[in-house]
């Protein structure tokens, strides 16, 4: 229980800041995540020493604005789902975005946390596909996603 109350951010990801947003690239899973300002601020405070309440308090001090603990719980939920927290230290409480909005009210001072994730493409998926009849070696190369095993050509 103690572990779960003291969330800790993973430190093995690549991190780039874009204004108050943060782009995190998980090299183990090849997934990129965009953390909006609130999620990014909460994530940075997850050092394994602060409890959820302390993260909430520190966040309020940093933003000079009242922060409801439901916002931090929602942020931690999303960060845990994106596997950006050490797994055993994810919070046990569950709250939905809808519940958080109900608790906080839609006129909250800070933005609701949001973590958007995208799987990084393989080179074959990221390049233009081949027309039917063109030589191929894998399904991923073909626009039809069908590369004939015997013919070695894309087909319908």
């Amino acid at each position, binding site marked *: 229980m103690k572990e779960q109350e003291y969330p800790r951010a993973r430190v093995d990801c690549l991190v780039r800041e874009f204004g108050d947003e943060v782009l995190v690239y998980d090299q183990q899973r090849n997934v990129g995540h965009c953390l909006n300002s609130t999620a990014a601020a909460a994530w940075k405070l997850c050092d394994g020493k602060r409890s959820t309440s302390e993260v909430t308090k520190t966040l309020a001090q940093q933003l000079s604005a009242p922060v409801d603990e439901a916002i931090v719980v929602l942020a931690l939920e999303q960060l845990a789902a994106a596997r950006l927290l050490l797994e055993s230290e994810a919070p046990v409480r569950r709250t939905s975005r809808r519940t958080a909005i109900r608790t906080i009210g839609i006129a909250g001072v800070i933005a609701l946390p949001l973590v958007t994730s995208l799987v990084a493409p393989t080179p074959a998926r990221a390049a233009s596909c081949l027309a039917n009849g063109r030589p191929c070696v894998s399904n991923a190369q073909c626009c039809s996603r069908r590369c004939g095993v015997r013919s070695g050509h*894309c087909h319908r």
Partner: protein
Amino acid sequence: MQRLYSLVVAEGGQRAGVRRMQILYADSLRIARDTELDQVLAALETDLHRYVAEASPNMTFLHAGVVGWQGRAILLPGHSLSGKTTLVREMLRLGATYYSDEFAVVDDSGNVHPFTRPLGIREDATYSQTKYTAETLGAISGVKPLPLGVVAICKYKAGARWKPASLSNGHGALELMGNSIAVRNRPRHTLQRIQKLVRGAVFVKGTRGEAPESAASILNLLNSDNRRGRA
């Protein structure tokens, strides 16, 4: 040398019941086999482009159409069959400069370089492409690297109206990462260059209908952005 291509060209005359194959290898992997040499050479070109995009240490390649407009680059990222070339072609018709219909090539400063292969316009349901140079379409090809102005992430849907939503820089950068050829191999360099690339850029995302409406609207975004910058 990092990659060796070998082309085995079939020799000898026609014999009944025998198909003479031209075979292309990249290192030890067979990547094309066809009776037509043109098909095999087209496969060589495709593989070379992809390999350069994947292996280039000094540039990051994003899968995107690119045009130059008012001294800035407009990026149209998207996967195959998303209509990049159609939109690029329409923008060329409206006076934009051709940079690429396949890759945005980004350097360490975040500038976009031309990759001016002929536009591959898909003609029918077989996805086959006909190649046109920008010049045959009445446009000119860019030479100088450009700073980024606008990124428009479009999805085609017949009859849709183009009413794009704005994206933040962080979300825009995530979208660009999703169109990066080598992010899995070189994530650090890719993210560094994307970070430099997106400074000051405008991001929009939406569903578009026919190209003329959305192309004009996207070019106009840069016009209005320039006006704001000068004000």
